[in-house]
């Protein structure tokens, strides 16, 4: 029934529109063909697919691991997605991913939620990370105490002058609230690690959807202060030395100061699986804890875990 009618349509058209139509259809069909040839060469049943999602802090590390691992193990396909620790954990609970990356421990509510949904998250510490306090290169301020940081982010200090800097308003940059880095920063810096401290971020804190968003604004804006995982720090921004609450020594973040416990704003990074992993997922996690994989950790500016 349909072919003759289609012919009618074509005959009814002028040549040039046919050419345009042909080009358009060709455009649409080309990738379709490449897909067919691709999938016929590599039937997908030979592959194990591991879905990996979560923390934006970890995403670039996970990406580097995934690339390297697929060179060693061509039969494993890894897909990596960011979105924030909460995103990954939610996806693990909803059963849409195999490994959730998190830059914080699972919350109690999340664990309850997981149990209620019939999943049993298992925790792995895969690397450590220091949260660097960063400002514009031209900012003369070098050191801040945790108390000062808390006062800046809760809105008590609003001008760089109060910290020995230039007369400039402070623009506070933070990650979005779904980021594990945000939660960690809230608990350990804004609230100084005190359990019953209910201080909040000042509402005019800019919530940027990503780590690189913070980096971009820091590079460009001399008023800004931000925090980011050490892996995101480049030499186009200045890292501030931080002193713990009861110390007078200002420490810059590095692998050494993190592992010695001197740098006060550092944390573990996690991967969660649903139940004790088996098969390809277990192999992958074993490899992540190997020396070879932990070297990549150092390359990306994170801190490798020490036995």
């Amino acid at each position, binding site marked *: 029934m349909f072919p003759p009618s289609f012919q009618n349509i074509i005959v009814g058209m002028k040549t040039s529109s046919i050419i345009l139509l042909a080009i358009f259809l060709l455009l649409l069909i080309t990738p379709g063909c490449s897909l067919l040839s691709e999938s016929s060469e590599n039937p997908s049943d030979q592959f194990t697919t591991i879905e990996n999602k979560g923390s934006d802090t970890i995403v670039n590390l996970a990406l580097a691991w*995934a690339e390297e691992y697929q060179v060693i193990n061509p039969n494993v396909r890894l*897909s990596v997605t*960011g979105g924030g620790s909460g995103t990954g954990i939610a996806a693990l609970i909803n059963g849409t991913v195999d490994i959730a990356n998190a830059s914080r421990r699972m919350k109690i509510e999340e664990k309850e939620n997981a149990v209620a949904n019939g999943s049993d998250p298992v925790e792995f510490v895969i690397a450590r990370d220091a949260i660097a306090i960063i400002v514009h290169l031209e900012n003369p301020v070098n050191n801040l105490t945790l108390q000062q940081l808390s006062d800046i982010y809760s809105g008590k200090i609003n001008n760089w002058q109060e910290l020995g800097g230039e007369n400039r308003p402070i623009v506070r940059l933070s990650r979005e609230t779904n980021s594990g880095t945000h939660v960690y920063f809230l608990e350990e810096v804004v609230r100084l690690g005190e359990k019953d401290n209910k201080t909040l971020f000042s509402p005019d804190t800019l919530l940027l959807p990503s780590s690189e968003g913070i980096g971009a604004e820091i590079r460009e804006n001399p008023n800004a202060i931000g925090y980011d995982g050490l892996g995101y720090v480049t030499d186009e921004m200045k890292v501030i030395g931080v002193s713990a609450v009861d110390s007078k020594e200002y420490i810059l973040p590095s692998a050494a100061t993190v592992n010695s416990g001197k740098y006060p704003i550092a944390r573990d990074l996690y991967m969660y699986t649903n139940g004790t992993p088996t098969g390809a997922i277990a192999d992958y996690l074993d490899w992540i804890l190997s020396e070879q994989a932990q070297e990549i950790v150092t390359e990306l500016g994170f801190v490798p875990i020490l036995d």
Partner: protein
Amino acid sequence: MKSSSHLRYKQQQFGFSLLTIMTFLTIIPIAGVVIYILVLGTPAISWEFIFGFPRGGMREGGIWPAIVGTFYLTLGTAAFAVPIGIGAAIYLSEYAPDNKATRLIRIAIINLAGIPSVVYGLFGLGLFVLFLQFGTSILAGSLTLSIMTLPVIISTTEEALKSVPQAFRTVSISVGATKWQTIRKIILPQALPGILTGVILGLERAAGETAPILFTVAAFFLPRLPSSPLDATMALPYHLFVISTQVPGMPIKIQYGTALVLLVFVLSMNIIATTIRSRARARRQW
């Protein structure tokens, strides 16, 4: 009297120049955006950039998976939206009685067109990804995008069908053709350029949108092409969002290159659609 008409002439001259300047002030920045991306993006374009896979934490290599992903999403969107959209347009133009129900359909189409894209994303996440358990997949994304594109396809197709003169229908029916035969053999062929325009404009919108695919399809990094409609995929607009906001030390060249590919993809669809439409209008003999 004379001076007043002189004044009025001056006023008019002033007004005209003001509007001319305003028009150019409107067009220049928008055109500037295109040229700027063209200039900064072109150096990034190479065989490897288009057909290669991303490497080195996406800082090297190409964007082929994102291009393919966007093709599939466009294709999937077309598969759902084209039959439904054209069907609905035929109904409105050829069958629908002038009554309350039809007016309700029109209001629904207008509203569908106005719903913010991120609300489509919410809906797609809730219905397709979670409730129907398609997961984050091309299928879920295509369905979400196709509902979003429907109003564009319906309204342009209907316009095209309505521009076919009534006489064509009367003649066809009078020589004994059924209603459907008339539609298929007479009206659809005549309206084809207009329909194509509508379809392409609709798909163009689908190809360029990020918000609806944020929670329904998009993967940050997927070192392979999707092999089934239930796979997640990278997509150009989301890829640009990712590399411009989430990857540290991303070479600016790759960012502009990706923006350029997306721009060319979307604008060429738009230009094809506009060309088909204006040619058809110029050729129309009735």
